[in-house]
């Protein structure tokens, strides 16, 4: 479980998140939604040690993550898929997968690649191609496969369907559901398409202006008479 208490964070002097306290739950799709600039991506980056934390704490299974470097957080079983540049474009898919398993032993990486390729066959299809030459959807699948390779306990997605065609976006979201259902991974999903995300989600967190204004069941937010309309463009 990820527990955040009184978090104030941002980028150097730019304060973005104000006094956030919440808990992301195990084996659930935790959806973080909110209007543009509300601090959704900053929340994920803060968990992953990519922002400046002014005060508050972030704990993963009781262990404090504040002050750790991203590679140290990755080694604790947390995977983060950034919104853009989530694969190494100049590296082949094979090299990307090898890098994804950088913290594992070589034999273990090979074993994991075989396992992961069952869920993401795209990696074997484009094994020797440079990742930069793949389509947006294929790249997203490679990025997910890379994250999965490290057997993460938590996977954090930052707008995984952004700039994807609707059909491909649905495939990506289906894969996310599959990761929860088959592997029991805790998912933290930041998504611009709030309606779609809340439909597949279990828990919802609504950020507005860097503050948490709602947390509860996804369905509750989806059916909320005002919040959805006000902040997410979801018409009742």
């Amino acid at each position, binding site marked *: 479980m990820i527990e955040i208490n009184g978090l104030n964070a941002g980028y150097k002097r730019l304060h973005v998140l104000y006094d956030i306290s919440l808990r992301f739950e195990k084996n659930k799709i935790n959806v973080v939604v909110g209007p543009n600039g509300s601090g959704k991506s900053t929340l994920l980056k803060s968990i992953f040690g990519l922002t400046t934390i002014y005060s508050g704490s972030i704990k993963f299974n009781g262990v404090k993550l504040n002050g750790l470097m*991203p*590679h140290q957080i990755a080694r604790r079983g947390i995977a983060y898929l950034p919104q853009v540049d989530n694969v190494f474009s*100049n590296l082949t898919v094979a090299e990307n997968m090898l*890098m994804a398993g*950088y913290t594992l032993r070589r034999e273990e990486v090979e074993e994991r690649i075989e396992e992961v390729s069952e869920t993401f066959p795209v990696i074997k299809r484009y094994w020797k191609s440079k990742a930069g030459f793949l389509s947006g959807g294929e790249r997203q699948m490679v990025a997910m496969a890379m994250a999965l390779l*490290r057997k993460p306990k938590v996977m954090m997605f930052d707008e995984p369907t952004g700039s994807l065609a609707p059909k491909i976006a649905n495939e990506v979201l289906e894969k996310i559901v599959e990761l929860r259902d088959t592997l029991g991974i805790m998912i933290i999903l930041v998504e611009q398409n709030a309606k779609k995300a809340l439909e597949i989600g279990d828990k919802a967190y609504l950020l507005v202006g860097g503050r948490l204004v709602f947390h509860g069941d996804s369905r509750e937010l989806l059916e909320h008479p005002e919040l959805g309309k006000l902040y997410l463009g979801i018409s009742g």
Partner: protein
Amino acid sequence: MIPPMIRDATIFSCLLALLSTGLTLTYMTTKVPNFAHGSFAAMTTYITLILVKILKVNPYFSVGLGFILGGVIALILYQVILKPLLDRGASYIVLMIATIGYDMILYSLINILADYLNRTYKISTRLYILKSYDFRVFHQPCIFIVAPVMAVLVIVSLYFLLTRTRFGIAMRAAIENPALAGVVGINVNLTYAASWFIAGGLAGVAGALLPLWLMCNPDIGGRLIVSVFAASIVGGLTNIYGAFLGGILIGMAEVLGTGYLSLTVGTWIAPYRPIIPLVIMAVTLLFAPTGLTGIGLRFLRRSGKR
């Protein structure tokens, strides 16, 4: 019989290729034009001098020592000066000036070392050349064989390091996208530090071999840096293989161009030698700003081989 001008051009271009490959490697990691790169080489020219004149041993022993010393000097610049500045969000201008400052420190240290060696061991430490201490192989100076072999060995080793080893691929990954590299668990700082060590090491190797062919002085780093930058820019600044080719091209053009002009216009032209790399650099920036790498990529795209 190989014409001396061709021989000189070959030696210089190979050593320049080592230097420009290193400069490009550091530029790719931290995006800082490192003005101290020439002084890494200048420092190690004195290793060869000490080995030959004081310890009376084979001058080629200096290659390994030069690599280590050059690497350590570069690592200090990265770890002690640039990294803390980068962590504080320093601009590239600040970082560039920091490398100039480090260059001044190195230049002072080289002068102190030169004076110390001169006074203590009574050896010439300024405007010295060690050609006469080189061996002859097949009626040619050994450096004529060692420099190309070393250049090829280095570029092939780098190719294998960067494409066949996990750490090498991690270096490429960290150079391309440091944030994502951190995300997958790569220690970005370690890969950058290794890049700086290798880059400094290459400069150290070039510096260790320089006195066997070129007149050396504490200011040799400053004299070389123009050619090194020109070679890196011609190579495209973001590709070590391009930088290697740039080094060969600039080295050849500089030596052969000056030689040809001296024969046709007169020897008075020789001191204007640094104009050649500067002109090539200017022409590259005007007509092909992405250098040889960009031209190569365009050619590959046109022929459909992505």
